[in-house]
Every structure is written in structure tokens, then in C-alpha cells.
């Protein structure tokens, strides 16, 4: 039965935003942990660690997110685990975010002048203290703008979770469209909702970047 697009549908779609947000937050937190590990490995002394982290980043940046989602989704069955779209999407997006954040943060760590790290070593600080109190705080200033920018990419990326059957914003739109057959209205609404989520972050990233550039040229 085809019915009219009503306020009930609008509420259904709007409520699905929470799954888009939950997925984004999980992937961002997981990606932050993974990304930090990758960034530290990329800038480590050990050649093996550097090579491993570089390969990880290259593979995840050089393959489609959609394929990563499918691989994790069907990979759960290979490992004998129950197939759960939320788990699959969370794991795939976490790995994806780790690779991108790892690369962004590696750049930020390398942007900190070498002398800073050398001075910390000369003061007999351990690797941990050197990173925690000297290098990372300075790297963070460089990293914030592109990190916020990546967050937009991540939120948009969660839409692909709909393809493996996870009901977030995009999938909610598809469900309503199947019932009402008003694709112009439904997908237009979904697009506006994504825009409301992403645009403020884009603006924030741009403002931070502009402020950063001022600070550098000054």
C-alpha cells in the first residue's frame, strides 16, 4: 500500500539521526585510539612498526569504504561470529577512521620541529613524557582543523552502513520511500538533515584552519 508522506514519516526519519550519530561517535572514538597508535607507529624508531602502520593506512585509504564494510560484515561469519550490521559497521568505520586519523596526526606530529623532541631527550624525558608533554600538545594545534574536517567525511561515510542493512538516517529514508514512494521529498529531507549535521562542522573546520594560518604567518 502506498500512503502519503506524513509527519509520522518525518519523525521516523528524524529519529534515525541518533543511529547516524551513535555510529559516528563510536567510529570516531575507536578511530581516535587506532589513529593515535598508527600515528605513533608511523613516527616510531622501529622500521617494522613504521612499515606495518604505513601498509595499514595505504590499504584502508586505497580501497572503497563500501568494500571494507562488506568484508567486515561477511568476515564476521568467517570468524564464526553472529552477523550484526551495527557491529560490522562500527568495526569497519573504526578501521577506516583509524587510517585517516592516523595519517592526519602523523603529519601533525612531524610538523612539530625536531628540536623540540631533541630538547626533551636532552632533558632526559622518557618517550612517554616526551610525547605526552612536549610533542603531542603542539601537534594537537595543527591537527584539530583537519580532524574536524574528517569528522564530516565520517558522518557522511556512515550512510554506507545502510547498504549492509543498518537502519540509520539513509536507511530510514529508503524505508519511508518504499512505503510512500515520494523519493524527491524523502531523499530531499534526508539530504537536508545530513546538511544540518555536517555544515556547522565544515564551517568550524574552515574557521580553525584560517586561524591556524594566521598564527603560522604571524
Amino acid at each position, binding site marked *: 500500500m502506498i500512503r502519503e508522506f506524513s509527519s509520522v514519516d518525518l519523525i521516523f526519519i528524524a529519529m534515525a539521526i541518533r543511529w547516524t550519530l551513535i555510529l559516528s561517535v563510536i567510529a570516531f572514538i575507536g578511530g581516535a585510539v587506532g589513529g593515535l597508535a598508527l600515528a605513533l607507529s608511523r613516527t616510531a624508531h622501529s622500521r617494522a612498526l613504521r612499515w606495518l602502520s604505513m601498509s595499514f593506512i595505504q590499504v584502508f585509504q586505497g580501497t572503497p569504504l563500501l*568494500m571494507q564494510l*562488506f568484508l567486515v560484515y*561477511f568476515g564476521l561469519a568467517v570468524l564464526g561470529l553472529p552477523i550484526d550490521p551495527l557491529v560490522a559497521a562500527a568495526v569497519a568505520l573504526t578501521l577506516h577512521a583509524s587510517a585517516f586519523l592516523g595519517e592526519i596526526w602523523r603529519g601533525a606530529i612531524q610538523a612539530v620541529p625536531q628540536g623540540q623532541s631533541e630538547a626533551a631527550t636532552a632533558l632526559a624525558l622518557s618517550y612517554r613524557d616526551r610525547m605526552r608533554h612536549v610533542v603531542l600538545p603542539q601537534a594537537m594545534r595543527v591537527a584539530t582543523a583537519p580532524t574536524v574536517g574528517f569528522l564530516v567525511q565520517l558522518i*557522511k561515510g556512515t550512510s554506507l552502513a545502510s547498504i549492509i542493512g543498518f537502519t540509520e538516517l539513509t536507511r530510514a529514508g529508503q524505508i519511508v520511500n518504499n512505503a510512500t514512494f515520494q*523519493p524527491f521529498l524523502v*531523499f530531499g529531507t534526508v539530504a537536508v538533515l*545530513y546538511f544540518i549535521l*555536517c*555544515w556547522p562542522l565544515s564551517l568550524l573546520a574552515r574557521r580553525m584552519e584560517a586561524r591556524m594560518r594566521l598564527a603560522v604567518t604571524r
Partner: protein
Amino acid sequence: MYRFNFQPVFDNLDMLAYGAWLTVQLSFTAMAIGLIVSILGAVAKTSSIRPLRWIVDVYVEMIRNTPFLIQIFFIFFGLPALGISMSPNTAALVALVVNVGAYGTEIIRAGIESIPRGQIEAGRALALTPTQIFRYVVLKPALRNIYPSLTSQFIYLMLTSSVVSVISANDLAAAGADLNARTFASFEIYLVLTIMYFLLALGFSTLFGTLRRVFFNYPAGR
């Protein structure tokens, strides 16, 4: 224990190879048209006509802040309501062009703005026509400056194009989905697909490196 079965994949490698060829064709067509859209967009954005700049701004922000999946749904399912119907393959191409055009516009605009005014004035002093100035003094050095960001955006476009299989357009991901529906060797199929996409990305990146040496192999000024 899971038993791996790569037989269906190896039996149908020709089908997957053909799918990869379709992905290459689709990506290159989208890149070529997308490059033109991007250049026009960047010119409009750096022009002195305010409404023109405003229109391009709206286009760029709309595309950059919504997922590609929704864009392709809107174009393929939504636009027929306005009387614009397209085949899945055409809709896929249009969606990719519209998408990459927005990112490309921003990238090329940054390139154009990186050209020092003095360079344009020098072109004028040499009595070059405005077209010549734009082509040789502004556009070419601008493209050279932003070449790395532009080409990585193009590689990202090729990876994103895997999404067009959801509206049943023909490409590598669709060939894989087809094979999966017939054989159910899901993990094996998607593993091979992922490897194929990775090889395509490597190939593109090698090609772009070569093109750079062909077109922009002259010493940097300034």
C-alpha cells in the same frame, strides 16, 4: 571452521575483469567531465559577479555536506518527479560528475588564488590576450600547484564509484554483487574485489605520476 572457497571467484575472473574495466571507464569519464565542471566552477567562484559566486557556493556546500549515496538516490529516484529520468549508468555518471565537480571547484579555486597578481600583469605586459593569460599564465600553473590534491580527489572518486552499484549501474562492485547472488562465496568475492580496487588505485596513482612528468615537467618559478 570456515571453509574458504575461491573457486567461484577464479571461475568468473573474466566477469570481474570486465567489471573493473567498466569502473575504469566510468571513473575516467567522470574525471574528464568533472575537471571541466571544476574549472568552470573555480572561474565562477573567482569572478567579480556576485550572484555567480553565490550560486557556486551553494552548489559546493550542498554537495560537500551530504553523502554521495543520498546524492545518487536523489538523482536516480528523486529527479524523475521533475520529469528528468535517466538510466542507472547515466545517473551514476551524472552523480559522480556533480560530486567531484564540487570538490574540484574548491581545489582549483585555491590553485587560481595561489597565482601571484604580478604574474598576470606580466602576461598583460607581454600583450597576451585574456584567453592566453587565463590558459597559460593562470590555469596551467594553478593546476600544477594543486596537482597532488586534485589527483588524490580523482582516486577517491574512483573508490567512491563503487557505490553506484546500489542503483544497479554496471561496475566492478556490481559484477561482484552479481557473482555473490549466484554463488554466495561472499567473503572470498569481496576480498578479491577489495584487492582489485586497491590495484586500480595503485594504477591510477602511477598514471597520474607519469602525466605529471609529461605536462608539468618544467622548473618552478619564483
